[in-house]
């Protein structure tokens, strides 16, 4: 795939070597603090002992270079919570792709791209680009990674006077750091997995900036790629070797004047005892009142309790959130949110909590305050 990208770059550069390239550098960032009333670490490290900065704070920079009217290259790096350590930040290359527009309605992209699994997939790191202080973990937490290396095709069709349909098939592969709890010492551990032969389809329908509907399906083969010399490594390798995994999702967003209603549903299936088969969904409503946009959201995740004879982990929780966004200016805003996470009695997964079994059947409060900007 990298060879294809390189070939596209070289082919497009050759005829324009004498001409100045057009470029643009843009940036975004979030300074965010979050805390909970629980001593049980939640959502990668939040607990009641202090305001956690690493969880929500991010800074990104993006460069877009237009080689000619058809071909452009986009790169984006983001400093954010490390994928291999809850307590530190790292700089991660999120995007590096070449985009070739065959015509007005057809575009091919290749390189490192964002997996289009959710309504907000492409702006996940850009807090200013969505309303909620934090995208619901019950929905967005189902995907262990959001990037892949591969290619997609974006084909647009006009539907009537004001409608637009976008069909986006894609294929590639990805490696990611799966986070879990080591059963031998109860510490957080990160293990490398590979999702091979990723293939998917994303379909988006926009109507006159009032209605957006999306549906997506992604299938892959998942394998453990870390050390397997230890007892634990050997066990994981035995459970996750070329297993089928899929993610299906639906989303809708309706704008009625100053009110926006957004809902998404996602279904994760992994043919392994190590992962819960989950169903996540949320609904949010926000209403713009001048510079303020108050909002409410409700998110739920549940799982198949009978999977693998009841041996697989279970995720079972819901979150009610209320927040407000204050628009400082066109480029920045401040968001404050209070939420209550209700952990169901069947929850025994370590995906969201460091040790789910100890907090099953309890409620915890989570508070977030963040400042978001783009430039």
């Amino acid at each position, binding site marked *: 795939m990298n060879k294809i990208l390189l070939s596209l770059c070289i082919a497009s550069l050759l005829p324009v070597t004498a001409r100045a390239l057009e470029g643009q550098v843009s940036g975004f960032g979030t300074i965010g603090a979050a805390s909970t009333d629980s001593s049980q670490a939640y959502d990668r490290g939040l607990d009641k002992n202090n305001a956690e900065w690493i969880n929500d704070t991010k800074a990104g920079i993006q460069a877009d270079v237009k080689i000619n009217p058809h071909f452009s290259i*986009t790169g984006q790096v983001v400093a954010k919570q490390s994928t291999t350590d809850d307590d530190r930040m790292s700089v991660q290359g999120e995007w590096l792709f070449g985009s070739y527009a065959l015509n007005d309605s057809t575009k091919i992209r290749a390189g490192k791209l964002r997996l289009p699994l959710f309504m907000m997939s492409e702006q996940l790191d850009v807090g200013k680009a969505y309303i909620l202080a934090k995208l619901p973990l019950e929905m967005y937490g189902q995907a262990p990674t959001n990037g892949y290396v591969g290619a997609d095709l974006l084909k647009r069709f006009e539907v009537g006077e004001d409608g637009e349909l976008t069909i986006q098939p894609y294929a590639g592969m990805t490696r990611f750091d799966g986070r879990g709890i080591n059963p031998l010492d109860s510490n957080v551990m990160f293990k490398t997995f590979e999702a091979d032969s990723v293939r998917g389809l994303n379909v988006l329908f926009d109507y006159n900036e009032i209605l957006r509907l999306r549906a997506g399906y992604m299938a892959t083969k998942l394998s453990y790629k870390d050390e397997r010399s230890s007892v634990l490594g050997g066990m994981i390798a035995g459970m996750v070797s070329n297993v089928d995994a899929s993610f299906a999702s639906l989303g809708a967003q309706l704008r009625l004047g100053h009110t926006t209603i957004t809902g998404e549903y996602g279904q994760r299936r992994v043919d392994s005892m190590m992962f819960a088969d989950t169903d996540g969904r949320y609904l949010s409503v926000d209403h713009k009142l001048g510079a303020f946009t108050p909002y409410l959201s409700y998110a739920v995740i549940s799982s198949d309790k009978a999977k693998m004879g009841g041996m697989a982990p279970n995720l079972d929780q819901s979150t009610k959130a209320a927040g407000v966004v204050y628009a400082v200016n066109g480029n920045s805003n401040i968001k404050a949110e209070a939420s209550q996470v209700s952990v169901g009695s069947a929850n025994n997964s370590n995906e969201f909590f460091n040790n789910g079994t100890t907090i099953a059947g309890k409620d915890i409060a989570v508070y977030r305050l963040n400042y978001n900007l783009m430039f």
Partner: protein
Amino acid sequence: MNKFVLLSLLVASFTAQAGVAVIANPSVGDGATDKDIKKVFMGKKSELAGGVVTPVDQKEGSASRKAFYEGVVGQTEDEVKAYRTEMVFTGKGTPPKEVADDAAVKLFVATTPGAVGYIDESKVDASVKVLLKK
């Protein structure tokens, strides 16, 4: 002196009330509609009459820019800015090149094949072609 000031104000007032003209390099084909122009400036269309076009914008705050976006695109400058920022950070494209004012747009459009811009209609001359007026 007072007469000169009064005359200047009248001229300025008259100028400010003039409409906006969407102009193009003579190489651009005819037949563009409001909707086509909106799509070109919002990054959803890169061709007009079968040829590739290059939109050029004016700096924020210019009277022509305000008139163009409110009259042709149907959005306020803030709405356009929010849309374009999202467009950039979702990897869907980049905003048009920006130049200083009507004169700079006219020069760019007149000398760049495929260029499309907008200027105060009172500034139009034979170096560019008018696609539509608002």
